[in-house]
């Protein structure tokens, strides 16, 4: 008996259909979803093999691996969505080791009832981000959970990359005297996402800065292989990341408020809500700690890159047994930039 030419009796109804438990069941329904959506969108040789794993040759050298989970709400926000964020975030985690990203994996946990139209929108956005970054999604997984047991969709990823020889970038390597650079304006992503959240009604033209930073990192490492630390200030903002690095490296820091670029709309939104831009998330920016003699060269290279136009030198590390991140305010006074307890909440007082 010959098998029917068409594998599935009816194509997926992306316009009106919803994800149901069958799509996660490992049977024909799931195969159809994988084929008609994921494989079609990500469209690369490894994935098209339809194995449960991807096999590939690896160059010799030092490999890095990272994993991430994406649970953001709302799923779609100005400048991005959970899909593009997942690609950018994972690529960035690999890049922050100075590594060249090679490939990604993506696991989807989808809630029963999630509209196929939204799923396609997320996956196609992810595929676009992956192609633009030149980092393929080579393997994946799909699960469906009962209605009420998932927040629409969760995405988990892993990413691998190779570190160029001679590059050793890690959070504990900062030393007193090192320069601290940032690649652009602070707080854009957090404010863009907040503007869509219920209960925080404000309008803005601001969009998320979500972006893959690996080509920026490559340009930086090429001119200054002695970079000590790289990290992207995501949740918790600049303040959390600086405090993390200070604690890991056991140094203090002294930065200058006037040197930190912040867009007027971010300032305005933070003023309205009583938030500090230094605590607001970024998804397309990095912090670089480097030997002081490399600062000028690095700044030039960063500013020449499309994602680093507003790069700035914001301060230096210093010896300090308490690992304080101290800031000279715009008025010339001194204050500590602290590590927040939890997420910043809007305040009225």
């Amino acid at each position, binding site marked *: 008996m010959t098998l029917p030419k068409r594998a599935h009796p009816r194509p997926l109804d992306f316009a009106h259909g919803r994800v149901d438990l069958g799509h996660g069941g490992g049977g024909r329904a799931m195969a159809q979803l994988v084929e008609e959506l994921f494989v079609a969108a990500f469209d690369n040789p490894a994935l098209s093999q339809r194995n449960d794993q991807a096999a590939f040759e690896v160059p010799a050298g030092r490999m890095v691996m990272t994993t991430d989970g994406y649970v953001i709400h709302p799923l779609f926000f100005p400048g991005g969505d959970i899909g593009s964020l997942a690609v950018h975030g994972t690529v960035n985690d690999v890049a922050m080791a100075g590594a060249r990203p090679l490939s990604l994996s993506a696991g989807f946990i989808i809630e029963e009832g999630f509209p196929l139209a939204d799923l396609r929108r997320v996956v196609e956005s992810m595929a676009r981000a992956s192609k633009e970054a030149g980092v393929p999604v080579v393997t994946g997984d799909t699960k469906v959970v009962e209605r009420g047991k998932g927040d629409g969709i969760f995405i988990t990823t892993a990413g691998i990359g190779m570190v160029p020889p001679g590059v050793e970038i890690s959070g504990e390597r900062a030393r007193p005297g090192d320069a601290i650079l940032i690649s652009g304006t602070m707080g854009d992503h957090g404010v863009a996402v907040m503007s869509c959240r219920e209960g925080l009604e404000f309008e803005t033209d601001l969009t998320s800065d979500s972006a893959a930073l690996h080509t920026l990192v490559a340009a930086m490492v090429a001119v200054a292989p002695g970079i000590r630390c790289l990290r992207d200030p995501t949740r918790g903002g600049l303040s959390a990341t600086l405090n993390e690095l200070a604690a890991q490296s056991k140094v203090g820091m002294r930065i200058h408020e006037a040197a930190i670029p912040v867009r007027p709309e971010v300032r305005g939104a933070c*003023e309205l809500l009583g938030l500090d831009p230094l605590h607001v998330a970024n998804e397309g920016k990095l912090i670089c700690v480097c030997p002081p003699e490399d600062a000028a060269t690095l700044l030039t290279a960063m500013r020449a890159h499309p994602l680093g136009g507003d790069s700035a030198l914001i301060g230096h590390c*210093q010896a*300090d047994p*308490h690992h304080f991140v101290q800031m000279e305010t*715009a008025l*010339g006074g001194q204050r500590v930039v602290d590590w927040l307890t939890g997420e910043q909440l*809007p305040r009225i*007082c």
Partner: protein
Amino acid sequence: MKYIDEFRDGGVARKIARAIEAEAAPERAYRLMEFCGGHTHAISRYGLEDLLPPAIRLIHGPGCPVCVLPIGRIDAAIWLAGQPGVTLVTYGDMLRVPGSGRVSLLKAKAAGADIRMVQSTQDALALARKLPDRQVVFFAIGFETTTPPTAVAVKRAQTEGLSNFSVFCNHVLTPPAIAHILGAPEDQAARLDGFIGPAHVSTVIGWRPYQAAAEVYRKPVVIAGFEPLDVLQAVLMLVRQINQGRAEVENEFVRAVTETGNAKAQALVAEVLELRETFEWRGLGSVAHSALRLRPEFADFDAERRWPVPQSDASDNPACECGDILRGLKRPSQCKLFGTTCTPENPMGACMVSAEGACAAHWTYGRFRDHSEASP
């Protein structure tokens, strides 16, 4: 941002600071209390103390409605949130403040209570309209700035017959608190030479209500805006008054504050709310005629009349020095609990529970001053 950025100019700040330095007599102390948490926050956040000569000592007062709310009232809010059918609606500031047993509204929410954050009483009303089967209780806190919005909401609810809306009222008043501090016996309060008066409270009540305290206690009061230049200028104006032996109310915040304030807002508040005989202030004890409740005509919208809300007497850790800190007798670093048991993550008393409490502000922005080993 217009009318904001100009008042944050570093160059002008240094000019005013130089004038203060020139006019403050170095051999005497100028002990100035900023009543308002917003000023505490501005001073810490901009590091204004570094621009002032050592003769100026800034003391942080109790003008933080989150800080001075007794634990018992937080427990009451949590109790209300646990009542069947209740959706408790609150400003963000209250969510992390722990009541007794370290339970906060945020923790109660995690345990299943229906607690939601709003930015405005308008949102609270909208929620009540949207959820006719829920009892929407608004957790009202704040000084005279925040009270009129509550009054508007109550009146609106009455006009619309929004019977599922009610208010748990904890509004407090500024002039009685200032008088309480100035009137405290000598051993119970720091000697104060002047007051930096609240900015936005004064847009509502005007500057006239401070005159009684200035006259009776012979201390100058300068109403100051919240921007750093406003604060610095107010310090200069106070230094001049003190040097000249004057004790007047002056208004630095002329762009928003008038002598009599916002009559429309005051009338609305007077229509909906009345004075409580007494109210407990965390860290200060009982203060007469310092708080408000809904008038009997609006009893239908008073959560304390709709439910038998428990009145508890929960008190702070005996080692907590907030009382002395709020009165300017001690500094945060002089409290044994500061930075050890008591941090913003685990606040033990009034001064740590809100970002603008004296201890929280010192921890978040200024604790590096307690150590001097940092070097470039």
